[in-house]
C-alpha cells in the first residue's frame, strides 16, 4: 500500500457514462492483483475524498481503471487530460484469489461491476481455468468489454435489462439458467446491491453450495481501514467488517448484503 503521484496516460469514454483511465506508476508497486482497488484523487482540491475504483487491468508499469460518472467528483476526473498527474493510494483491499483446484469459474458482473471480472480474466489468462461469464448491462449503450469476455470465456452471455442487446434478462438469471450445464467450482461476482441480493437468495433457494465470492461497494473515507466508514454487517449482525480493508471481496454467506 503506497501513496503515489501517477501520470495519466489515457482517460476517455468507454460508454456514454463510463470512462477508462490508464495511468503510469512512478515506481514498482507490490501486490497489484485482480479484485483489489485504488483510491484516487479527483484532481480537484474542493473534493477532499478520493474515489475508490477497482483495478481493471494492470502491467508492472501501468494500471487501468474504469469508472462511472456518478457525480461532480467523477465528472471532474473525466476531464483530466493525458500527461496530468493525480494522487493515488494503491493497491488496496483483498482481491479475488482462485485456488488451484477451482478450475471452472463463473463470473457474474453487472454494470460497472464487470470491470473487476475483467481483472480476474486478465490475471488468470493462460492458467488453464475455464471461465463462464454472465455479464449484464442496463441497455445497449452501456455494453462494454464484450470482446474480453467472449475471447476468454468458455461460455459467455452478455445480456441487457431492456433487451436492447442480447437476451432481455439480467446476469444473475442468465447464470442460474446455465448453472446445470456450467457446474462451476467457484462463483465470483460484482455488481449493484439488488443483483448481489438476487444472487445470494438464488443460491440459498437452490441449495447451491459452490463457494461464491462477491466484491462490495460502499462510500469510503480513508480507504485503508482506519476510519470505519465503509462497513457492512457480518451475517448475524453482531459484528462489522470493513469493506476497504477486510474486503471488498467477501464470501457471500459471510456478509449481509
Amino acid at each position, binding site marked *: *500500500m*503506497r*501513496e503515489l503521484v501517477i501520470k495519466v496516460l489515457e482517460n476517455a469514454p468507454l460508454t456514454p457514462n463510463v470512462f477508462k483511465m490508464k495511468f503510469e506508476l512512478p515506481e514498482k508497486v507490490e501486490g497489484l492483483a485482480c479484485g483489489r482497488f485504488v483510491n484516487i*484523487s479527483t484532481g480537484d*482540491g*474542493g*473534493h*477532499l*475524498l*478520493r474515489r475508490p475504483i477497482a483495478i481493471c487491468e494492470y502491467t508492472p508499469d501501468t494500471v487501468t481503471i474504469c469508472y462511472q460518472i456518478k457525480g461532480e*467528483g467523477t465528472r471532474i476526473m473525466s476531464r483530466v487530460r493525458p500527461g496530468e498527474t493525480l*494522487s493515488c*493510494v494503491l493497491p488496496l483491499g483483498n482481491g479475488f484469489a482462485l485456488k488451484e483446484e477451482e478450475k471452472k469459474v463463473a463470473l457474474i458482473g453487472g454494470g460497472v461491476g464487470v470491470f473487476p471480472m475483467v481483472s480476474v480474466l486478465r490475471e488468470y489468462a493462460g492458467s488453464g481455468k475455464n471461465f463462464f461469464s454472465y455479464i449484464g448491462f442496463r441497455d445497449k449503450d452501456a455494453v462494454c468489454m464484450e470482446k474480453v469476455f467472449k475471447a476468454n470465456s468458455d461460455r459467455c452471455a452478455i445480456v441487457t435489462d431492456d433487451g436492447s442487446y442480447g437476451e432481455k434478462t439480467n446476469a444473475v438469471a442468465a447464470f442460474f439458467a446455465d448453472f446445470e450445464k456450467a457446474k462451476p467450482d467457484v462463483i465470483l461476482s460484482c455488481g449493484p446491491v439488488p443483483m448481489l441480493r438476487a444472487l445470494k437468495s438464488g443460491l440459498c433457494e437452490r441449495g447451491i453450495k459452490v463457494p461464491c465470492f462477491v466484491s462490495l461497494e*460502499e*462510500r*469510503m*473515507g*480513508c*480507504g*485503508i*481501514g*482506519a*476510519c*470505519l*466508514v*465503509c*462497513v*457492512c*454487517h457480518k451475517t448475524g*449482525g*453482531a*459484528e*462489522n467488517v470493513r469493506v476497504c*480493508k477486510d474486503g471488498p471481496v467477501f464470501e457471500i454467506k459471510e456478509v449481509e448484503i
Partner: protein
Amino acid sequence: MANLHIDICGVGFKNPVIAASGTFGFGKEFNEIYDISVLGGISTKGLTLEPRLGNPTPRIAEGHGVILNAVGLQNPGVERFLAEDLEFLKSKGTVIIANVAGKTLEDYAGICARLDGLADMIELNISCPNVKCGGMAFGIRPESVVQVTRAAKGGLKKTPLIVKLSPNVESIAVNAMAAQRGGADCVSLINTLTGMVIDIERRRPLIANNTGGVSGAGIKPIAVRMTYEVCRAVDIPVIGMGGITCAEDALEFIIAGASAVQVGTANFTDTLAMPKIIEGMNAWLDRHGIADINELKGTLTLNG
C-alpha cells in the same frame, strides 16, 4: 531545525501535531504507509465501555471543501482496545490520547477509571453529533459540561483530562470555562459542525443517519475563530483543530493560542498529511528565524 517539542499538562510531545480521533483508528493502518512514531500524538477512535456497531451506511458524504460523517462511534470497546491496540501504540513512542464517550455520567467515570494510568491523556468526547447517546447531550449546556467533566475527573488519578468541545452550542468559550470549572486539564476544539447533504434525485439525505458532522478545509476559519475565543477564556492549555491541511493552517491555530493541533480529514485527502505538516512547520520556523514553536503560541495581535 527549530524546536517543536511542547508540553501539555506535564505530558511531553515531540511536536504539536496530533492525529484527530476517528480518522486514524488505532494507528496500525497508517503505520503501513509511514512510521507513525513521527507524530506528536494520536487521539484514538472514540472508545466506549461496551463494543458498538455504529450507524447504518452510507456514513459519509462530501460538500465543497468539506466532508460529512456519521460513523456513530463504532468501536471494539475499551477492553479490546487495551488487549489488542494499546501495546502497539505505546511501542511507537508517540503520545497516546484515549478518546472516550458514554451514555451516562457513570459510563464516563467508568471508562476514565479503566484507562487511568494506561493512556497518556484522555480526551472526553461530549460532542459526538452522530449518536443519540454519544455524549452530545452533555456537550451542549455549560452546566452539564461541568457535570460530565467532574464525573470523568472522578475516575482519574494519574492521567490528565482533555475535554473536546462541540461547536454546535451557544458559546463555545462559555462551555470551555465550564470544562475548566469541572476540572478539565485541557480542552480541545472543534468537534464537527452538524450538517446535511441531500440527494435531490431521491429527495433524501445522502447519509443514512440524515445528518453528519462537517469537517475538512472549509470549516477552518470557524475553528480558528473559536480556538481564539476559547484561548482567551480559559487558563488551561487548548488543542485546536478543524480543517487543517498544511503547516500554515496549523500555525494559525498556534498563533491564536493553541498549544497543539489535531489533524483529521486531511488524512483522507493525503495519507502523508501529518508528516508533511510537521516538516512544513519546521521549515516555516527556520525561514522566520524562530527557534522554538512555543515562542509563536498566542502571539496574535488583533487589528486596531
